[in-house]
């Protein structure tokens, strides 16, 4: 049931996002769009409540409960950044506004990557706290092995992301000499780039 709920929350996330951005930029109803975007955290609350309810009803703790905790952790750590990033791309593509991008080169990029990594640390901390709460709630060491392994997974991901952020300090991307990078940083709006979806 938890897997189905995670899928429903993920689908709901994108539906709310598309509806919110559609109202904001296609229908020119920014307040309605903002209200829809602000509904996103409600999905996480529903997931949290149902996960707790599932455990309370005697469900065997397994990887799905761990995945739910990580999903909620990601939303706390990176949800705002993700929605803001998508909003910026929607404004660029649908409204013709210049694309505001993160710094791409040098120490400014390294500082940006460190901030993003702090979001991952927050996500790992939230997921660990939720998993620990579930472990205390179940209170049976033989049944919580999978939840403990998800705590390890969360910190492993945070560690790998920390190494990625560290590489920007050790080997910073250099600004191109022809000034191409600075033009892109300024967000000229002419650039149509590939966007990960």
């Amino acid at each position, binding site marked *: 049931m938890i897997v189905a709920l995670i899928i429903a929350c993920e689908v709901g996330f994108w539906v709310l996002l598309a509806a919110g951005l559609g109202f904001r930029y296609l229908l020119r109803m920014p307040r309605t769009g903002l209200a829809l975007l602000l509904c996103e955290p409600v999905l996480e609350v529903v997931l949290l409540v149902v996960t707790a309810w599932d455990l309370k009803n005697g469900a065997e703790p397994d990887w799905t409960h761990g995945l739910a905790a990580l999903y909620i952790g990601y939303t706390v750590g990176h949800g705002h950044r*993700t929605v803001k990033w*998508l909003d910026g791309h929607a404004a660029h593509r649908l409204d013709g506004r210049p694309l505001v991008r993160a710094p791409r080169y040098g120490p400014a990029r390294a500082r940006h990557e460190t901030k*993003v990594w702090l979001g991952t640390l927050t996500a790992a901390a939230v997921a660990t706290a939720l998993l620990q709460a579930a472990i205390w709630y179940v209170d049976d060491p033989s049944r919580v092995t999978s939840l403990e392994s998800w705590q390890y997974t969360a910190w492993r991901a945070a560690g*790998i992301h920390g*190494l*990625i952020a560290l590489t920007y300090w050790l080997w910073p991307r250099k600004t191109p000499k022809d000034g191409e990078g600075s033009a892109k940083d300024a967000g000229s709006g002419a650039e149509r*780039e590939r*966007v*990960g979806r």
Partner: protein
Amino acid sequence: MNTRYGTVLTGALTALAGLLLWRFAGGVDLPVITPSRAGVVLMVLGAAEALFGAVRAVGGPERRRPR
């Protein structure tokens, strides 16, 4: 599966995932990570993990972890 060979396999798969990210996701823009840079780090970590597993595999009988 034997834990040591499992480590080799995990490392190899991590390195392969890194290689694919580095090779094919260069122009993709994401809010949290840059796939190409993450690919390089995953390749290094995966290779190190596979090497560690290989060294353990040829280094004698596996020690049991105390429970």
